[in-house]
């Protein structure tokens, strides 16, 4: 025991009244844990399962479906940067932008920089197609990006 702090547990429990059963809190719990710890470790999964009165395999089953969540084998950096590569962005240079950002950071999509600062991801349609190509940092989207403006954005504290 001990992967989840009491504060995290309390935030997960605070989600219970919204739903008629605890299983529905699975995604919320995974988000809460990943936001704080940059991963959902096997132990954290077990503790989430205990809180939600589920079998750990049920939590793992859900978690593994959504490519969004990372376990301890590939924890996230402090910042998660997504470069959109779907059609509207591709038509306006999204693929080239992704290649440039990979080059700048020295990582491939899915990887984290050696200093643990930035995880780079490719995204499938971020829904900001009027501002193609766009980049998402954590959950904030930035339209009309270039390699230069993305570099600046990543550097910003």
């Amino acid at each position, binding site marked *: 025991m001990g992967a989840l702090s009491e504060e995290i547990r309390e935030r997960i429990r605070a989600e219970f009244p919204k*739903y008629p059963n605890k299983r529905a809190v699975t995604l919320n719990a995974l988000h809460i844990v990943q936001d704080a710890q940059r991963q959902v470790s096997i132990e954290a999964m077990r503790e989430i399962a205990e809180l939600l009165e589920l079998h750990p395999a049920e939590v793992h089953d859900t978690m593994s479906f959504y490519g969004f969540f990372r376990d301890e084998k590939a924890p996230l950096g402090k910042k998660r940067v997504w470069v959109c590569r779907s059609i509207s962005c591709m038509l306006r240079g999204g693929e080239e932008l992704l290649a440039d950002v990979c080059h700048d950071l020295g990582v491939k999509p899915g990887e984290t920089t050696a200093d643990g600062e930035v995880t780079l991801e490719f995204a*499938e349609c971020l829904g900001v197609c009027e501002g193609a190509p766009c980049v998402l940092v954590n959950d*904030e*989207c930035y339209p009309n990006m270039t390699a230069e403006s993305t570099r600046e954005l990543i550097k910003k504290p």
Partner: protein
Amino acid sequence: MAEFEPVLMARIGKPDATSLASYQADGGYDGLKKALSMAPAEVTDIVKASGLRGRGGAGFPCGLKWTFLPKDHPGPIYLCVNADESEPGTFNNRVIMEGDPHQIIEGIAIACRAIKAQTAYIYLRYEFGKSYRVLQNAIDECYAANLLGKNILGTDFCLDVYLHRGAGAYICGEETGLIESLEGKRAWPRIKPPFPAIEGLFRKPTIVNNIETLACVTHIVRRGVDWFRSMGVPPDPNNPRDPGSFGPKLYCISGHVNKPGCYELPLGVTARQLIEEQGGGVWKGRKVKAVVPGGISMGFLSADELDTPLDFSGPGKAGCLGLGTAAVVVIDDHTSMVDVLFNCCRFMAHESCGQCTPCREGTDWMRKILERIRSGFGKSKDLDLLMEVAGSMGIIPGTTICGLSDGAAWPVKNAIKKFRGEFEEYIAKGMKSELPVLVDAH
């Protein structure tokens, strides 16, 4: 067209447009007050009479959907609001959530009044962080003003609205995939029947409606059925099953145009009008090669088909799957259709949930064949092979549970039918794509 007055986007960009005070100053929540003075069935009748069809992609008549709920059910009944907007090219829901959230919450409250639901969940894709914060703030304002919560505005109507964030999966936009995901499971669509109206969220009767649909409900109740039916395209007299395409629609236009954006117009505007009048024409003085009429799942219009009206039946007549989300993506004549189609196939291979074999395997094999073609190693039989794979996956051939697969097959079918010469030349000459591609699927 001249007298058309936008309503869904009318307040967007005004100072303080997202606040409750400013919304109420513009007549906000008058529609809810009106709905609370009526019996639930009367509200449903109004929406039914308006001819409102779902804006999420399928175009199913909204009022009719509501009547599928069992009569006199003791409850609970749920409303799920589909804000998982993920179809490539689509961003209209995001624009109204961020710009005028209260018209959506009012629509949710009116809908819940009509269907007798006391709990609504807004399933919001995770990437829309700004929408999340704007909507949460609007919901908090409503609780403080007794527009949500117990005994709303002194009536016996009670309603809780919760925001539920997704985790980056396109399939959650499919209504039963959404329900499974909300329940905390992998988002595998359910076999239907039973439809959600009979057995949906937490095994209870459930209605799933799109954000824009619910925003329309607000304005229909406030302005009336005649107002809504004064716009759009009436039913085709030669097709007794056509309910027509009434009301305003949020059209998204992106890709190779000068002014990409979201524009509100009456249903039935043509692709050409949208590109030239709203989109400011094709960028760099180029010409159109192809147009996606409503998200990539709907396929492509060729340059000869730009006068197709973008109502619920227009794109179908040009061989597309339908109107979809009315997300128009313009592709110029300097772009290779091989690159475009590869992009579509890669998306679908990445987003297939893997539950049905024809979709899981079909989407990935189509991607692999396109990968081979774009690398310069295409074979002349590849085009027929692609058509064979595309023809055997989906609800239409009857091999999958949900429509993702039909949407994966359609761009392939349309592209090869309408642009076959370009593909044949590409393969014959062993041409190669100039685009960098770092990872294929996942």
